[in-house]
Every structure is written in structure tokens, then in C-alpha cells.
């Protein structure tokens, strides 16, 4: 019998993968202040997944393609005159989610399917899901390793990046696409609503613990993995929803670290610098 034949084993592997992936990608999401965009992306990917499920094609393909469309639309709209990235994002969030709900509600078994898509179930992931997550993680790490320094510059100083002649639109698209495929890879485990927790939470927590850029990646990945494993463990012990348990741990760890660092006066000093 194969070790991966066990539901719990597969869930543990998936938890480690999405925890690490979400943490690493989250560093850019948090530094670039994209949590709201990520939130919108998770919701806008939803109809793509539903359509794929209805048509019986690969849901990663459906969610991924639809998400890329949304990324392109948000970029195009956000760059238009007098428009704001946040406005475009808000429209994508509500519009995407609404379309997904309409599509699901047109089918039988509405409530059960909606729950599966929106909060996920890491205990239901198959070997195919694991392969998909591994591929996404490998691709994302490759992109970050290759153009990490350019992404850093474009995040910190977009005009400076353009002044150097870097293709900033392409870099923006690369980053948003990385976020998008991460969201799609995380959805089966955590669902469209909770996926954002593993992408934003661990990186935001790591940011409280260090001011340096490079250590953020291992720190966020470690926190993500720990929360994901803890969530799976709690959920199998007490038979509660896995995705929600993971998201709860992410929130608890962030809260604890925030309080801890605030007590140590770190937050106070940061505020003094900002003032």
C-alpha cells in the first residue's frame, strides 16, 4: 500500500505544500499591498472553477484561465485614466463571486457544491491535486528566483523601475500571475474564501518579526506550513472543517505575534518612525 493512499497523508502533504507556497508568494503580496487584490482574485477565480466542473474539464485549467483573464482586465482597467486599481479589484471581487454563485445555483445540489468551492476540503485532495500543487510551487519558485530582484524593484519603486527601462507592465503581470496560480493551487484545500488566509497571514506575521527582505521568505513559509499542519491535525482530531481550522490558526498566530511584538514596543517604535 502506497503511503499517499491515506487521506490524512495526502492532506498533510498538501498542507505543507500550500503552506509554504502561500507564505513565499505572500511576501510579495504583503510588501506590494495586494491582499485585497488577492481576495478579489480568489473570488473571481471561482466562476472559472465552477464552469470547469460543469463542463467536466480540469478545474485548475478553468480557474487558472479565468483568473488570468481577470488579472489582465484589472491591469488594463487599473491603468486607464482616472481609474484606480482598488476600484477595478472591487468590481472583479463581487462580479466574479456573483457569477460563480449563479452558475452553481443553476445546478442541483447547490448548497453542498457551493460549500466545497468556497471553503474547500483538504481531506478530499487526490494525488492529481498534489501533482498540480507541486508543479505550481516549482514554477512559482523558478519565477521568483529568476526575476526576484526586478520584482523587488518594481514593487518598491515602480517609476524607478520604468526609468531603468525594465518592462514594468510585464513584471506586474508576472507577479499577479504568480499570485493567481497560487490561489488556484490553494483553492481545493481552502476554498475561494479562505485561500487568502494562507497567502496573506503568514507573510504579514513574518513581516512583524523581521525588517529584512530575504528572511521573510523562509519565515513566512515556515509559519504557513505550521498553521496548515496544525489545522489538519485539529480537524482530524475533532472532526471540524479543515480549511477553516487552518485559517483560524493563521489568524491566531498573527494575533499572538502582533500582541507579542506590540508589548515589546516594536510597534511603538515603528509608529514613531512613521510619524
Amino acid at each position: 500500500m502506497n503511503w499517499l493512499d491515506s487521506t490524512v497523508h495526502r492532506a498533510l502533504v498538501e498542507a505543507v505544500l500550500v503552506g509554504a507556497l502561500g507564505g513565499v508568494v505572500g511576501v510579495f503580496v504583503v510588501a506590494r499591498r495586494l491582499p485585497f487584490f488577492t481576495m478579489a482574485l480568489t473570488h473571481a477565480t471561482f466562476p472559472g472553477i465552477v464552469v470547469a466542473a460543469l463542463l467536466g474539464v480540469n478545474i485548475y485549467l478553468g480557474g487558472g484561465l479565468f483568473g488570468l483573464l481577470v488579472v489582465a482586465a484589472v491591469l488594463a482597467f487599473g491603468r486607464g485614466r482616472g481609474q484606480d486599481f482598488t476600484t477595478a479589484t472591487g468590481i472583479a471581487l463581487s462580479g466574479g463571486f456573483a457569477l460563480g454563485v449563479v452558475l452553481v445555483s443553476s445546478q442541483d445540489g447547490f448548497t453542498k457544491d457551493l460549500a466545497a468551492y468556497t471553503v474547500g476540503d483538504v481531506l478530499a485532495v487526490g494525488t492529481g491535486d498534489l501533482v498540480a500543487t507541486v508543479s505550481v510551487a516549482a514554477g512559482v519558485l523558478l519565477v521568483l528566483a529568476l526575476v526576484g530582484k526586478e520584482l523587488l524593484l518594481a514593487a518598491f519603486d515602480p517609476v524607478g523601475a520604468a526609468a531603468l527601462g525594465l518592462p514594468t507592465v510585464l513584471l506586474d503581470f508576472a507577479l499577479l500571475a504568480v499570485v493567481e496560480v497560487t490561489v488556484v493551487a490553494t483553492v481545493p484545500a481552502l476554498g475561494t474564501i479562505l485561500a487568502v488566509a494562507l497567502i496573506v497571514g503568514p507573510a504579514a506575521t513574518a513581516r512583524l518579526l523581521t525588517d529584512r527582505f530575504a528572511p521573510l521568505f523562509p519565515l513566512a513559509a515556515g509559519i504557513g506550513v505550521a498553521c496548515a499542519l496544525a489545522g489538519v491535525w485539529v480537524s482530524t482530531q475533532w472532526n471540524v472543517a479543515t480549511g477553516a481550522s487552518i485559517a483560524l490558526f493563521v489568524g491566531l498566530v498573527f494575533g499572538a505575534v502582533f500582541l507579542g511584538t506590540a508589548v515589546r514596543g516594536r510597534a511603538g517604535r515603528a509608529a514613531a518612525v512613521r510619524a
Partner: protein
Amino acid sequence: MSERAPTLVLDRASVAYGDVPVLEELNGVVHEGEAVALIGPNGAGKSTFIKALLGLVPVVRGRIEVLGRPPAQARRDVAYVPQADTLDPDFPVSVEQVVMMGRYRRIGWLRRPSADDRAEVADALERVGLAGRARDRFGTLSGGQRQRVLLARAIAAKPRMLLLDEPFNGVDAVSQHALLEAIGSLKAQGASVVVSTHDLAIAHLACDEVCLLNRSQFGFGPTGDVLTPERLRATYGGHALELRGDRVIVTQT
């Protein structure tokens, strides 16, 4: 001594965002080792002028040549220094990392900084008087120090032309002095400098030439010839007062 080569040529140039012209009829020449001050009220188009020299805003009529090339093709030899307060002070990036960004063009895609790059970064920080702050987070420095870090980033790029957008705004005296020193040493090495500022005293002190701007050009030439009460009054639309003959105070920027 040989004639200094022109590094910036403006020939009846107009620049525009889409259909909206921002600056019209720009004329003038800047040579190696010269500094030109861009002076004009807020909204006059000073930042747009700088972006046009970077090729980020299109020239719709006439011609702009930077280092003998169209602006977008000269970027490798041009360094841009933004206003420090336009950058996120909470961003988790060290002073050293910010200065290293000036080397990215030379390092190239997919490659990592070499020992030479690190040496250039250390040298650039030395030149702006911040050698001891390399490991600090960028946002923990004062506004003036952050401005000096951004100048160090430009120095590390070894530019032949330096573009600075309002570098003296809200900068303390120590940092102002450090910025002026560093700009002076770049000029001495033959770099051309374009700097936008509200400060007429700095224009006198640091710049050989002045370009008066308010949507169009109200003067371009040697500082002493151009910074006259009449021209300033014309540029600022009457919001300039004359003090004791040759001194001028601008009452509204």
C-alpha cells in the same frame, strides 16, 4: 581645452500625456558637466519634463535628444532620483538593497550582484555620507537621509546624466549639504545634472543654467541671465516680488 559635448538637446519639443499637451516649445542645450535647474510653480510640468527625458512621456512635436539618442534609448546612461517621500517607508528593504537597485541594469536579468557591485554600492554610500547605514531598513532613515540613499543609488549606476525630482524638499541642512557635495562631484566627473527645485538659492548655488517652466518655457540659459525679476514674474504669473533690485522672492509656489 576641447569643446564640451552636448548631452541634452531640446529642439522646439512638446510633450503630452495622450492628447493633453503638458509642455510646449522647449528649447535649449546642456553640456557635459553642466547642471540645469528646472524652476516653476507646482503643476508647471517639472516632473513631466524629467519623465520626458526618461522616455516615459512621449515627445509629440519637435525633438529631445539625450546623450545623442532618443530618450528611451539613453536610459542605460541616465539615472533618475525620485522624491524620497513618494516611496513606501514601511517597505522591508535595506539601504544597501536600495542602492544595489542602481546596479540592476549592469547586473542584468537572471544574475546576482557580484563583489564589484557590492564595492560600488559601498562607495556610493560613502559619497553621500551614509556608509554606516548600509544594513538599516530604508524607512528608518530621516527624509533627508532617504533622499541621499536614492542619490547613492543613482551614483552606483555610474550615469552620464542625472535627473533629480525636487531632491531638496523638506530636507535638513546636513542632508542638503551632502546632496550638493555629491552632485558637485558627479558634475566634476563630467555628468550632466537636471534638477527640479523651488529653491532659487540652490539654483544659484549648484546650477550653471536655469530652465523656467510653466506649461511652456519662460527662459533657458545661464543662471545669472535667466533668474531675473521680470522672467520670474512672468513664470509665476505675477506671484513674485522684487527685493532690493536683483533679489526676488516667489510668493506662491
